[in-house]
């Protein structure tokens, strides 16, 4: 085996493969620390389990099963049946890590409940769960193949090449982590330089970002075609993990000097301004001034891209003492039960409710059009992940994306606006 310098992803994968080292591009079979699965495709998984003839899964303790896409068993949907059969199956299998409606996003269940720990490898069904990389855990998205990992306690993967993004400086006034990832997607998506990569973030700018902000960067990375992302855990991340690990082990993994990176990018956070991503591409970010004035019908704050406590705090900073425009519907979805409770303790929910927001139960909600369905020609601005046509209802609706300041300020104005004047006023008050 080659003894070449290893990236973070290579080291985590090597450990899960029972190997000393692995090479980028190599196919290996790994045993995960956990497999995390949502409910939406559960009926299909259940049919396949029956077809294959699986009676018991080998490691029920490694399964983390979360109902986050269809948080309410709503009238007119078949999801109430899914909730029942998933809950029953977990009970029969002895899966204790079942999280029903209202617990929130898999991303948050994994971090807040101590599953995502430094050096762990987690098979999941979505690329945006790379957010757990903020704690040094590696998300390997395998879509509906989570079934394979659940029933075999192992699966194959191609070791991804790694890329490195170095952040310097600090965020300017009215700028959020969402603006940073919008900038990265705008720059790095068209030429495919992050395609299939595990992206490692580092640099003095990263240390200045909150854990929520770091998760925001990682959660939207997959739009560039990147496979996953990870950060070497610092003191802030390790303190967060230590408070939740409950005796479960972790392994802090750092890249070797001289490890090979397919791409290297550097961003000065201080040079980034508020952006809005215009439909239908996730990399279509423009300065907010370019689309300012666009009338909106709906605004939403939530999802794995923008529903954490810092996002709600940012929204509340804008919305305190203000009312949303009368023609706008504003949905706010705390990303998890923990975020919901903390937002209540901090008084954020009161501010949001008094400003006119409809506060939804933790989960994916508006991000996949389960709630907040758009009609023909309607315009929305959201902190959610997606802006392609038809994602939120009508194909002729338009979804703009932005950070929580932009979305909250736009809800107040009834049209897309630069949030900085409102924010400056709020700060002065």
């Amino acid at each position, binding site marked *: 085996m080659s003894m070449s310098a290893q990236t973070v992803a290579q080291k985590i994968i090597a450990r899960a493969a029972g190997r000393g080292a692995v090479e980028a*591009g190599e*196919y290996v*079979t790994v045993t995960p620390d956990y497999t995390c699965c949502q409910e*939406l*495709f*559960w*009926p*299909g998984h259940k*049919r*396949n389990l029956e*077809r*294959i*003839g*699986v009676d018991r899964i080998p490691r029920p303790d490694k399964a983390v099963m979360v109902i986050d*896409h269809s948080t309410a068993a709503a009238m007119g949907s*078949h*999801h109430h049946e*899914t909730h029942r059969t998933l809950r029953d199956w977990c009970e029969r299998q002895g899966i204790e890590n079942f999280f029903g409606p209202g617990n929130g996003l898999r991303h948050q269940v994994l971090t807040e409940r101590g599953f995502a720990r430094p050096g762990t490898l987690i098979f999941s069904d979505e*690329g945006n769960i790379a957010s757990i990389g903020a704690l040094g855990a590696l998300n390997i*998205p*395998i*879509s*509906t*193949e989570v079934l*394979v990992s659940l*029933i075999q306690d192992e699966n*194959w993967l*191609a070791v*991804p090449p790694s890329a490195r993004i170095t952040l310097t400086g600090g965020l300017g006034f009215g700028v959020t982590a969402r603006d940073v990832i919008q900038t990265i997607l705008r720059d790095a*998506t*068209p030429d*495919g330089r992050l*395609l*299939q990569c595990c992206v490692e973030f580092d640099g003095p700018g990263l240390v200045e970002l909150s854990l929520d902000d770091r998760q925001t960067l990682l959660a939207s990375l*997959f*739009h560039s*075609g*990147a*496979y996953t992302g990870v950060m070497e855990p610092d003191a802030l991340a390790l303190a967060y993990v230590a408070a939740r690990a409950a005796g479960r082990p972790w392994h802090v993994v750092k890249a070797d000097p001289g490890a090979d990176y397919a791409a290297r990018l550097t961003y000065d956070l201080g040079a980034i301004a508020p952006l809005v991503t215009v439909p*239908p*591409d*996730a990399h279509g970010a423009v300065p907010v001034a370019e689309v300012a004035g666009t009338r909106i019908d709906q605004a939403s704050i939530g999802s794995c891209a923008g529903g954490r406590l810092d996002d709600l705090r940012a929204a509340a900073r804008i919305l305190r003492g203000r009312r949303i425009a009368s023609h706008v519907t504003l949905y706010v979805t705390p990303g998890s039960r923990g975020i919901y409770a903390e937002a209540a303790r901090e008084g954020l929910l009161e501010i949001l409710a008094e400003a006119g927001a409809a506060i939804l139960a933790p989960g994916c909600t508006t991000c*996949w*059009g389960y709630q907040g369905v758009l009609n023909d020609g309607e315009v929305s601005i959201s902190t959610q992940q*997606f802006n*392609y*046509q*038809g*994602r939120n*209802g*009508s*194909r002729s609706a338009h979804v703009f994306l932005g950070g929580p300041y932009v979305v909250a300020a736009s809800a107040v104005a009834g049209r897309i606006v630069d949030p900085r004047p409102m924010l400056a006023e709020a700060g002065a008050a």
Partner: protein
Amino acid sequence: MTGHATPRGRVWRFGNDVSGDDGIIEFAIIREGFGKAFDEDALRAMCFRRLRPEFPSEVRPGDIVVGGTNFAHHNHVEVSVAIRASGIAAVVVESCEAGFVRRALNTGLPVMICPGIAAAVADGEVIEADPAAGEVRLPSGRVLRARPFSERMVEIWRAGGVIPLLEREFAMRRAASD
């Protein structure tokens, strides 16, 4: 069922940055069916129709899709099911995200990443795509290289997908323990 022999077929050529959910298929329609069995007829009827309206009616079993860079970005598994249900034997792309390769393979559809393919073939030409060897053979006799599938990937492909393969393996395991 395609997928057993080495795919050799007529090329349907597509461009760069083709969206999976909002291009090859239509998310607004498939979303309603999440969790239900795939409606293959509906998926076939919408497959590529926005880009090539004649595709659903004129595609033939064994045809090959050739795509450009970042092909099928943002793809739910229904994208792969739609292409496979249309009879496509292989997809050869300039580049795509890793998840598309996995999702497609699990439905029995091989996706080969083959830099140079977009400039090398024209619509309607007949090419051979060999995932096991990692080779794409052009009418001129020229051979383009792709990363060969691993042994396990070839097994999944030849079984027509990961579920049929696991079904067979578990049946053999049960038979062996009887």
